[in-house]
């Protein structure tokens, strides 16, 4: 009797606490996307689902769907295979320079695709240093770029998981006579699986919704669902077809999340022993060489950016960096690039605060031990913004948030809100596992000793979770710094972010503007690395998993 009532209360409590972030999700994501879908399903005011279904039968749509699935799957697989050993080296070993490498590895994830596209292509174009490989314009180039962007996701997620696994289990297995290979196969990998699956599902979503990479690297020869939605919406205004593809996206995400939630459920107890990590031994040589190779792969395009940013005409110098205080050659920009950086920092501050507040609430809810299926649905709902087309969301903003009480189209707050929606799932995936690792009996004990709910939160949850909260804030900050998809739909001339500034510069003729775009990209990369490095210094970066 008491138990039943308490469970019902529990559920009521969940719903009440979830109300605020849910209201934000509905207002700033579901309502706009729904608005765009409605335009597709009701093309002339009357319901015509036939047109949408007809689109799904087009052979081109099948090709596009097939390419989306296989390119994202291959990229995810390669990113996992490449990233897992790096995760081991950076999160299970201790060596000088490790924190710096951890920070650098995150940089690709937040670089604007338009810049990485150019940097990558300068390497693999037939005239570039890697031209002999013949990769330019191939599907392999698309996959390579997708891997480039997403390795950091694997390294961080799997790495943090790995760090959390109690090492004593492996040591026990070894002491009982298991070979290193047996330990890996029978103890380490099974424990690691939830982390790998969690990383893989996020990476798959990022790859399946990538836009700039597919267009730039593939030279328009390939199309995925995202680029197709872009073309159908912005060029052909075929909203029925765009709606069909958006529905397809939602279906794929739902299936994927259901699948990954099943595996992630088996959480591993977090290791809170404070033994220092071991230094590398000879047995780690292969892993370290692999890590070095992956870091070189990640740094090569960034190095080519740095070199391009220092080139001016036939000579070398810092002119491109000095030019960042100007509006570019022939007023390519409406405000100086430095102002773009300041805007980016300001917006990122607001966006990461929003993502952190809402994200912690959601993480708190999904980590409740008695949550049941409801929390799973909640977790999935907040992952949706990662997997739905930014074009659909951006156009949706324009057509739904246009009248009171939600007349927000020209509001300066719309950009940080949109970015917060993108960063929120990452906050949930960073803070959630840590909260989940807290024994509920500790809270019950505190409660029985007379602590109020707020006091319990303060004395039991916060001491364990605060570091992961800071880490999540740092990551949300970096995500916001690099966000371009939704931002480019909302940014206005008087307050462009740095990625928008870079995009404008690179689209304007003249070597001076090109050099400035490169310099601005390096500044963006350095700012991101600095933020990530500062977060590492808090010695938290690794507790969570996204």
């Amino acid at each position, binding site marked *: 009797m008491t138990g039943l009532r308490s469970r019902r209360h529990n559920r009521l409590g969940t719903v009440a606490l979830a109300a605020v972030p849910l209201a934000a999700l509905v207002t700033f994501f579901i309502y706009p996307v729904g608005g765009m879908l409605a335009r597709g399903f009701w093309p002339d005011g009357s319901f015509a689902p036939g047109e949408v279904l007809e689109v799904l039968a087009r052979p081109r749509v099948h090709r596009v769907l097939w390419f989306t699935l296989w390119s994202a799957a291959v990229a995810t697989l390669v990113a996992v295979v490449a990233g897992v050993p790096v995760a081991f080296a950076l999160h299970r070993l201790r060596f000088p320079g490790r924190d710096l490498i951890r920070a650098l590895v995150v940089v690709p994830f937040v670089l604007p695709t338009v810049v990485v596209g*150019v940097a990558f292509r300068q390497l693999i*174009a037939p005239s570039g240093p890697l031209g002999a490989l013949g990769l330019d314009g191939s599907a392999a180039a698309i996959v390579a770029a997708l891997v480039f962007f997403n390795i950091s996701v694997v390294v961080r997620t799997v790495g943090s998981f790995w760090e959390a696994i109690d090492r004593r289990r492996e040591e026990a297995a070894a002491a009982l006579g298991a070979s290193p290979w047996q330990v890996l196969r029978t103890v380490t990998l099974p424990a690691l699986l939830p982390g790998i699956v969690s990383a893989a599902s996020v990476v798959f979503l990022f790859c399946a919704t990538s836009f700039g990479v597919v267009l730039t690297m593939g030279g328009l020869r390939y199309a995925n669902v995202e680029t197709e939605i872009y073309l159908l919406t912005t060029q052909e205004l075929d909203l029925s077809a765009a709606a069909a593809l958006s529905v397809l996206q939602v279906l794929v995400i739902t299936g994927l999340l259901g699948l990954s939630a099943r595996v992630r459920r088996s959480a591993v107890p977090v290791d809170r022993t404070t033994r220092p990590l071991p230094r590398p031994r000879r047995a780690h040589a292969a892993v370290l060489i692999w890590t070095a190779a992956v870091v070189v792969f990640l740094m090569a395009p960034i190095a080519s950016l740095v070199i391009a940013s220092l080139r001016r005409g036939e000579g070398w110098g810092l002119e491109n960096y000095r030019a960042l205080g100007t509006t570019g050659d022939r007023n390519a920009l409406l405000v100086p690039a430095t102002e773009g950086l300041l805007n980016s920092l300001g917006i990122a501050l607001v966006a990461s605060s929003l993502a952190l507040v809402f994200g912690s609430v959601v993480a708190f809810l999904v980590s409740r031990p008695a949550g049941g299926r409801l929390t799973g649905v909640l977790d999935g709902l907040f992952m949706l913004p990662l997997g739905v087309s930014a074009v659909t969301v951006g156009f949706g903003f324009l057509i739904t948030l246009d009248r009171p009480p939600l007349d927000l189209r020209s509001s300066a707050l719309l950009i940080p809100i949109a970015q917060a929606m993108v960063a929120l799932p990452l906050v949930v995936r960073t803070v959630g596992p840590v909260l989940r690792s807290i024994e509920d009996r500790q809270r019950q004990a505190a409660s029985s000793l007379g602590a109020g709910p707020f006091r319990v939160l303060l004395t039991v949850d916060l001491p364990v979770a605060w570091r992961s909260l800071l880490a999540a804030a740092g990551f949300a900050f970096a995500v916001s710094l690099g966000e371009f998809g939704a931002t480019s739909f909302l940014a206005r001339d008087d307050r462009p972010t740095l990625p928008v500034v870079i995009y404008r510069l690179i689209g304007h003729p003249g070597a001076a503007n090109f050099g400035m775009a490169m310099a601005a990209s390096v500044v963006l990369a350095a700012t991101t690395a600095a933020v990530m490095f500062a977060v590492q210094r808090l010695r938290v970066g690794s507790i969570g998993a996204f």
Partner: protein
Amino acid sequence: MRIPRSRSWSSLSSIALSSLGPLLALTLLTSCGSSAGSDNGDPKTLVVATHDSWAMSKDVLADFKKQTGITVKAQPQGDAGALTNKLVLTKHSPLADGVYGIDNSFASRAVDEGVLSAYSSKALVKSADAFELEGQGADKLTPVDYSDVCVNVDDTWFAARKLPAPKSLEDLTEPAYKGLFVTPGATTSSPGLAFLLATIGAEGAGWQEYWEKLMANGAKVTAGWSDAYEVDFTAGGGKGDRPIVTSYSSSPPFTIPEGETHPTTHALLDTCFRQVEYAGVLKGSKNPEGMRKFIDFMLGREFQAALPDNMYVYPVDSSVALPKAWATFAKVAPNPVAIDADDITEHRTEWLREWRDITSQ
């Protein structure tokens, strides 16, 4: 002694709600406040939706403010296609007071969808008549500037190999120029679309066959103009390996080396498609009078003269002098390829789909 978790739960949520609720309310309030300030029909501000290439010197816009008391707020909305489609989607609650940057390949869609209200500026000079739209679009959109999208070649490259540079669209399919041409794609780039239209205008019904030959001759398609010019073009920022590129007739002056007087590239004036850019008053505009004044101002000598340096386009007023390097090295095409705006609107999607099938796998 059961622990009353349920009670702690609901009170916890009420604590959280009481602290989060105001935060969201604050968010909504401040955002409503800021939007009300900017477009609540304030006659002193004019919001103009533009394409992404919008650029104008502060001095010129300050002069407009001095003359009329109106501050212009430009809001870039994507390329000409995205700009037009956003206006169509939001026609019941317009994004801005006016629009600048709809070009002749999207003009008919904007006119047919009824997003514009009529205005014929008295400031339009006689020489600009040729740029006016035909039919009902004529009193809705006012031509402001134009540009010629042409094939550009790297003279230094061809001179070094003692190979004559190509001259026409037909030349690009010759074996001598195999693997030398790069163009931005028609579906993702506005000069790319212009180049496709140039080939359709020049080749007529045989344009698909032309593109098959072009692709068979090793033409490369990139996503955007910057990919083609800055990565693949031999005379661009990235020192690529293709000496023939789709760009503008105004591009060559940008390749004048430091300390020299001649550019290292030139535009093939027989391969050009003319893009005309228009301005108009949006239906439902909160400041139609301000936009009409701004259209007049855009046709005035000061704005027209500032166009080449800011947006790399030619003024529609032919009596306005061009910058010195332009007058010599950025001549306009004497006979550009032309396609009727209505024709483009009618066939664009079909042409783009056919083009996509020819150029992709």
